[in-house]
């Protein structure tokens, strides 16, 4: 009896103690502020040069409102084929544009240099407009023909699911695909779906899974550089990684800006209107 009473008393005491434990508290760590610049600049065949310059913010600053991070007093230099082309001019909100209305031209090599007082200067890698690969034909299926990845093999078809097969004209063009291996398929409403070229050189086709439930039937296939793909891949990983113990392997965003952050990449594209393609 004595042992039983002793046990009950102990268990009551234990539960009282356990319920009063607070397991979270602030972690005091001194993180010095780093002076780092960054730039986002995607260039297209028919667009005027435009870049957005920003700086790294303090880790404990508010996450809303990027105006504090925009840099409007930097010097942004554009180079073409290793020769200085022009200074891009600031129009506010960290945006710098070409006042000559100059646009990227295929087969020319471009890079940016950015300077700001009290900050290390940053330089992008040399980039070009990816060549447009000629499309030979397009086939639209109302059912899935190919295995897109293991995750789609046994999933049920959702209403509107279709497969878009794009065939390219020459096998020689495939050599370009290995140099510019990433593709983007978007429509105006659903945003980016980024695919990396994973098919062997024996095939000259690409298969896309699309859903025609959206009101827009126009799709854009974009050809970009590997730097572009790696940037967005690492953004996706970092944004999806959970906090705490699982985030051990979350790393930095892949950037082609030396001593800086961001992305400088060319994008070429074609539009496809699926309303004009017969369904098989």
């Amino acid at each position: 009896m004595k042992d039983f009473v002793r046990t009950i008393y102990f268990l009551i005491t234990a539960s009282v103690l356990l319920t009063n434990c607070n397991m979270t508290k602030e972690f005091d760590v001194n993180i010095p502020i780093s002076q780092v610049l960054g730039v986002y600049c995607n260039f297209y065949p028919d667009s005027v040069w435009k870049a957005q310059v920003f700086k790294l913010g303090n880790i404990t600053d508010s996450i809303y409102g990027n105006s504090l991070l925009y840099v409007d007093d930097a010097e942004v230099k554009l180079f073409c084929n290793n020769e200085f082309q022009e200074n891009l001019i600031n129009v506010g909100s960290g945006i710098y544009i070409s006042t000559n209305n100059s646009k990227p031209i295929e087969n020319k090599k471009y890079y940016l240099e950015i300077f700001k007082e009290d900050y290390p200067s940053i330089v992008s890698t040399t980039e070009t407009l990816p060549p447009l690969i000629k499309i030979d034909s397009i086939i639209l299926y109302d059912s899935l023909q190919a295995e897109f990845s293991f995750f789609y093999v046994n999933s049920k078809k959702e209403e509107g699911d279709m497969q878009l097969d794009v065939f390219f004209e020459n096998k020689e063009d495939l050599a370009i695909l290995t140099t510019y291996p990433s593709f983007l398929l978007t429509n105006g409403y659903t945003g980016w779906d980024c695919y990396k070229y994973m098919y062997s050189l024996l095939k000259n086709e690409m298969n896309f899974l699309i859903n025609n439930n959206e009101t827009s039937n126009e799709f854009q296939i974009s050809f970009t550089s590997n730097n572009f793909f790696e940037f967005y891949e690492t953004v996706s990983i970092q944004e999806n990684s959970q906090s705490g113990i699982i985030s051990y392997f979350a790393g930095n965003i892949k950037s082609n800006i030396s001593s800086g952050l961001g992305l400088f990449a060319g994008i070429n594209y074609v539009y496809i209107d699926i309303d004009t393609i017969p369904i098989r």
Partner: protein
Amino acid sequence: MKKNILILLLILPSILTAQDYKISGLVSNNSGNKLIEANIQTNKKSVLTDKVGHYSLSTNQNKLKLSVSYIGYKTQTVSIEINNDTTINFILQKKENQIGEVQVVSERDFEKAISETKITSNIINTLPALGGEKDIIKALLFIPGVQAGSEATTGFFVRGGNSDQNLILMDNIPIYNVSHLFGYMSVFDVDMTEGITLIKAGYPASYGGRLSSLVKIDLKNGKSKKTTGKFTLGLVSSKLQLEIPLKKNTYLLISGRKTYFDLFTRYYNTSIKQNEGSNTYLSFYDFNLRLTSKLYEKNKIFFNFYTGDDKTEFANVYKIEGSKSSDIFKNKTGNIVSSLSYKHYFNKRNSLNLVTGFTRYRNIKISESEMVNKTNPEKNESEFFGESSSILDYKNILKYQFSNNFLNTEAGTEFINHNYIPFSVSYNKNVLPIYETYKPFEFAVFVDNKLKIKKFIINTGLRYTQYHIKKSKYNYLEPRISVKYTITKSISIKGSYTIMHQYNHLLSNLSTGTPADIWFPVTETSSPMRAEQYTVGISKTKLFGFINTGVEIYYKKTSNLIDFSDNVLSDLDIVNIEDYIITNGKGESYGLELFAQFNKDKYNGGFSYTLSKTDRQFEQINDGKPYPFKYDRRHNLSSYIAYDISKKIKLSTSWTYMTGYALTLPIGRYYSPASENEASLFLYSNRNQFRMPSYHRLDLAIKFEKQKARGLRTWEISIYNAYNRQNAFFIEIHSEFRYNDKTQDFELSKPKFWQRSLLPIIPSISYSFKF
């Protein structure tokens, strides 16, 4: 002068014909286990027993006193009168309540304990434990040079090595996963073991395949003449252990352990599955069977079998407009280990040992989603995804041993057939899984010699290993050299040099032993890992008459290490797992280890301190510059004291301190073009640039024993983390919603770093009865 010569001539014949008598025999304990290097002493000389517990000495005295001693046992002294060669066997009795001994070796061999340490099950049962669950692996943390991973986990790190660099053997067969409940406790039942032996350097050549340590689980052999047993009721699990004598010299030991709270939650969960809600189900079990038999005088057979599993299930059930949806996640992790060992003694000096066995580890994860529409069954949907990882090894060892008073030799060979399925994926219950198999073969030949020359003991060993996988073959020579010099009876110095290779890796981002762990073999594209270690140490026994102490320094260099690259999600794209692994890493670790152990009157205790540094270097990480290993803890201190308040009440306490482990934190924030209104991207620091807060913890335990008519009853009350230290388990950054009195609205605060702790003060109680 003439008189003296005459006396000399008279006694000379007797001197010349003085006969030497040989006294020999065996020294064992009352369990029948031979005691190696027990001390047998006369008033003129002393000898030690050999590896089979045999001693032999010669004397010309007819009447003498023979005294036999062995640490942990009562000394026996006999007075004998002999006229011819005599055999005298000794059976020593254990000293009662022998607690506080981390090193259970004779005083003369105390210096061997610098790199080899044994902890008996008596000591493990005395130490305070989390939830009252005595853990044989966690007891290793009291040894210098051994560090814990995360809180309440069984992963441990020896001299800067990863947790997969420890070879853990159960009766000579490796066991790959030693965790239950995500690392909360180990798979070993203390009541089935005599203790645990850890070797950190100077490994015998008969062992190989891991870089950092050798851990031997010393299983019990039967001894009792009648059926005995013990059952224990704890807060987490309960267990029963039986020892049954089958016939003369043949014993059967069985034990089973299981969680029991899942039996209650299972009933509750069944109700939940029929209605809305979430439920969690956690359970594990262990089963051990051991058969030992002595066939005639010269043969022994041991059969061992272990199986254990962890089951986890999380389920969410919800109803929407006439349909019911459920998401279920299940995980099952477990081991099976079995071995058959045969030992034949040709004579007192030569023996042959044959071991054959297998080990299997597998880990299965299943994710199922189902939607049942009662009104429109055509809209029923289900999804299934299953993945698993497994290893199956078949191992055979043949070993010959020879020993006499000045030479011990061991030679043999070892074969291991591995079968790895690192990842297997299935998308349909009815469809065969997709997997890739690796079947490497490992072979080794070894020889070890231990030579005693005056004050030196020189140990030279050589191990030749070969590893075959597909068309690749790796072969290496691994020297094992150690030298010990006895300066005085109580002071000795020792040094060792070792080369080791490892042919597999554990890919895990955590030390908890989670379902994320994958064992992966060395393939054609990755070279075996290599370690080279130098150690020097000095030890002294009986400092101030009752303290045994020592200090050791080590330097270890490793190469061909592997790690995950940056930017790897916890839920890996396992089909392309090799894309996420980086190889050709290097490691360097060095340190100083101190320990002291005492046993005086009613007090026993020990103290260990390690000062160490460990770095890693990969070309693809940290721009190729060296960075701290995650578990590079500069200071590591462990201490314990046990006190016998009375014969029935025993008190023990332990205190642990560790420098926080290294981690990578974000140091800046910037916006993403995909998220126009949020600065949601982080810039991270160099790998492992920051430190977690220091870890320290006090544990207490008190035991009440009472001898009843049918056995010994024990109540044990323990308190884990007695002063409720909030030891950080992980760090995260986030904002909090707070109510602003001025604006009378909720607003998001600025982001801050927060530490989360796992285990607060945890009292526990357990009951056991030994019959």
